[in-house]
């Protein structure tokens, strides 16, 4: 009550000085104050909650500290992924995002491969699993961080094809079995001891990992890190904490990542690496990296550091298994995206069109800008699917209205092809292209302006 401030205001600038809360005198200073409990906040009544719009926040897919500890991490790791479907554990928004930024359509297929991973609803879980698996679990998800370069070095996408999918099927089946078994028995008796299953699990996993075609020697590969890729994972992140170094490692990681992309399509591999990359990548070297250090402390380190830990502890054979698993497993192989080799600019985006004064979603895909024979620019958006359906294919005419809007959107007006509405196929429609970040939108906008003048 003695605060000069009025607590109702949310901005304190210039008014922030506060008087002491309690009067302190020679008479009371020595008395112990009653300690105040932190407590937990009270939740509103159901009545109130009913009328509130509770927003669900977008996850970038970062590891949560809280998820990484605890005796049951391994357990959890096993449980959850099957629920999400097979190897869903790798689905990690973060890993994908930086990759997108990097690959930028140069490797369409890789993007599409990642897509499945993203499907996984819970990154936390994912991460929990990754970290959890690190030291002890046979799943060896964590190896990927190291593996990437390995994979990059030697693995050809083609090599991972058939055997990978076979491996995956088996692994998925194994995981589903585990899940079902656990569900069944825990439902029956929540107090049961699950240790035997995991022993079995380990055995089965080893056996499927040793199937022909899965026989990469992960540890060997790890030891021979090639090029930049090695860097992130192999070094102790703490050691390279200084901010100045960050950009370097970031770019290193970056290049690695794209490397993987082109050649190898291993969702699981990309998962953890990606998370590491995500952080480091996010401050581009050109940036002063104001938050650089902090990021390096927090996100890259945490994601990195956990992963290496896993490596260190993980027995070689486990790691082997993991490596193989990852190298084999290309969810992306299934999706063959249509590449646009001649595009000078490609960017993942989400396309909307305006109808009845509101924007409707047209689809998600990759936008390409390509030069045409007559010096004009073609704007092409292909869906990120196997078929690579064309969502939009227009020329960029000099008079095309084009503006930046919102945080990460570019607005254009064109006569859409394919038409958004069969009836009025020739009517210009406002299209909204949403890209990932503000910078991306700025860039796209700038290029479009340049090209339409040309």
């Amino acid at each position, binding site marked *: 009550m003695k605060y000069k401030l009025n*607590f109702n205001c949310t901005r304190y600038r*210039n008014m922030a000085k506060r008087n002491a809360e309690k009067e302190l005198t020679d008479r009371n200073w020595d008395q112990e104050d009653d300690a105040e409990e932190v407590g937990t906040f009270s939740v509103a009544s159901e009545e109130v909650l009913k009328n509130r719009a509770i927003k669900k926040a977008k996850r970038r897919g970062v590891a949560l500290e809280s998820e990484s500890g605890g005796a049951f991490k391994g357990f959890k790791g096993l449980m959850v992924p099957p629920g999400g479907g097979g190897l869903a554990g790798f689905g990690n928004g973060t890993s994908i995002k930086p990759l997108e930024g990097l690959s930028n359509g140069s490797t369409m297929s890789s993007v599409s491969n*990642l897509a499945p991973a993203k499907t996984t609803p819970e990154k936390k879980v994912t991460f929990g699993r990754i970290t959890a698996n690190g030291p002890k679990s046979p799943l060896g998800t964590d190896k990927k961080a190291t593996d990437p370069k390995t994979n990059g070095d030697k693995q050809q996408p083609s090599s991972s094809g058939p055997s990978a999918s076979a491996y995956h099927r088996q692994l998925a089946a*194994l995981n589903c079995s585990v899940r079902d078994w656990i569900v069944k028995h825990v439902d029956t008796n929540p107090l049961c001891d699950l240790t035997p299953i995991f022993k*079995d699990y380990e055995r089965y996993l080893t056996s499927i990992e040793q199937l022909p075609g899965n026989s990469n020697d992960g540890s060997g590969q790890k030891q021979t890190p090639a090029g930049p890729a090695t860097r992130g994972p192999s070094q102790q992140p703490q050691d390279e904490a200084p901010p100045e170094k960050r950009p370097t490692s970031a770019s290193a990681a970056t290049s690695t990542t794209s490397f993987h992309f082109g050649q190898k399509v291993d969702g699981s591999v990309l998962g953890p690496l990606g998370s590491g990359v995500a952080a480091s990548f996010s*401050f581009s070297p050109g940036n002063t990296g*104001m938050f650089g250090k*902090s990021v390096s402390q927090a996100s890259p380190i945490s994601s990195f550091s956990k992963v290496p830990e896993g490596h260190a502890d993980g027995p070689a054979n486990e790691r082997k298994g993991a490596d193989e698993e990852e190298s084999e497993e290309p969810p992306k192989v299934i999706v063959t995206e249509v590449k646009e080799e001649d595009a000078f600019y490609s960017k993942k985006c989400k396309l909307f069109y305006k109808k009845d004064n509101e924007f409707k979603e047209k689809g998600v895909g990759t936008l390409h800008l390509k030069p045409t024979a007559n010096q004009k620019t073609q704007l092409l958006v292909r869906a990120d699917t196997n078929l690579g359906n064309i969502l939009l294919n227009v020329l960029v005419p000099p008079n095309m209205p084009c503006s930046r809007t919102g945080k990460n959107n570019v607005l254009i007006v064109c006569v859409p092809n394919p038409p958004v509405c069969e009836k009025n196929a020739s009517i210009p429609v406002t299209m909204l292209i949403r890209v990932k970040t*503000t910078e991306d939108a700025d860039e796209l906008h700038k290029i479009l302006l340049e090209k339409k003048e040309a």
Partner: protein
Amino acid sequence: MSQSEPRAAGKFKSRRRASRATALSGPSCRGCWKPERDAAAPPPASPSGSGHLQQRELSPPATARTRLAGNVLNTTMSTNENANSTAARLNRFKNKGKDSTEMRRRRIEVNVELRKAKKDDQMLKRRNVSTFPDDATSPLQENRNNQGSALWSVEEIVKGINSSNLEVQLQATQAARKLLSREKQPPIDQIIEAGMIPKLVGFLGRTDCNPIQFESAWALTNIASGTSDQTKAVVDGGAIPAFIALLASPQAHISEQAVWALGNIAGDGSAYRDLVIKYGAIDPLLALLAVPDISSLACGYLRNLTWTLSNLCRNKNPAPPIEAIEQILPTLVRLLHHDDPEVLADTCWAISYLTDGSNDRIEVVVKTGVVPQLVKLLGSGELPIVTPSLRAIGNIVTGTDEQTQIVIDSGALAVFPSLLTHPKTNIQKEAAWTMSNITAGRQDQIQQVVNHGLVPYLVGILSKGDFKSQKEAVWAVTNYTSGGTIEQIVYLVQNGILEPLINLLSAKDSKIVLVILDAISNIFLAAEKLNETEKLCILIEECGGLDRIEALQSHENETVYKASSNLIEKYFSAEEEDQNVVPESTSDGYTFQIQDGTPGTFNF
């Protein structure tokens, strides 16, 4: 000679004093063992320096001061105070038998009792404890009883005081003083109801009989140390001008007793404080300190004076008249350079009261140039001194940016690493509060906080402090993010402020939750300017902030709901491509793959 006697008495009387004595018990008490000073410059009326010394060593912390004075006198007691001296000796004896742990235990008990009781009662109880707890069982008790003035009944006292014989009046007054000094239920109200106050006030003017002046002053001091009603009875009896007149008494012990009584009256509240001032107490009080070297004054005498001056600075609504403050301040500044810990503590308290107010009141203090000395004491490490000086410094930085700057220029920030990690959580809290007001200042002031390496300490409190300190640190962070430059905010984030900040989002205190949300949105504003929003999002998500912010949407407090919802909408909106972009097509492929597998192949 008898100078120490009054002090002994005084201790029983003054409630403020009693509480203060308790407060200062530990470290400060040690500080007063200063043989050099005592020996070198024995106070004029003080018989023996060695007596002081011994006394101090013997006396348990809480009551050391008063008792000590009494004892000293005993050794050289003059005639008409035999009874008193005996009592004083008794005290000493009694205390000797007790180890300090025992005394401490007693004090703690009393404190607990006090907290439950009313303020006024507290004082009495505390006073009593420190005085005569063991009289009844003391072997020397009989001697005292034999003196004849001990343990009179109230009726006998009334009769004696109403007598026309001065000697009888003296005896009765002394008996009254003793009754009023006893541990349990001193018959203050009975004495008042018997109409004794005007009589006692009358005795104050008996310059022809110093002993009766002294005994009545002591008795009235103890009455004034009671409840406000009891203090009022003393004031209504006309005691204020009478005591003010006694300040000039050539008898030091009488003058000191008057100082004490006036302290009790002024300490009652703003009204009597101003009445004491209005009757002109300040001039004669300051005159008592107007000696070339205040070290030449007796230690106890000086402490009494300082304490009474601090009572003249105490209390708000209204605060003391500003002219009075300006008159007292130079003396306070002088006292602040003295070397007695109790004097220093009380002076710091006085300054902390004076700075607890509007900026122009702060200005009156600051312009005396006292701040550097305050900062020095802030680093003294003596808890009874650090506490009030920290409060004073904390008050000053609630003032203008210029006033705050003076604190910074005096080097205060260098002390804060130790304050922000002080073993006493109260000090941590006060230090964090002070920081919050400095980070509420100009950007160059925030920069000073950064340059002194204090940000990691704030992070430390936020992570590990008790909740009250954490709340202050939250304010410090929010103010910092509100007024800091982008670089400063980045530095804050780099030091790991986010995680401990976010961890407090689940706290019960919705006000502090709002303040945290405010800090987060300030940090986002900075990140936006750097185009690093994404990174910040990741950082926040990484330390669990997203879950917590999401959860806050269910907070019972509507404002919290809105603030958290806004944050999510603005920075964590699911609208973005991410959730929708990839999933569908991919998930199909994925699902397909899973179904392809043949569950059941493995038998568990």
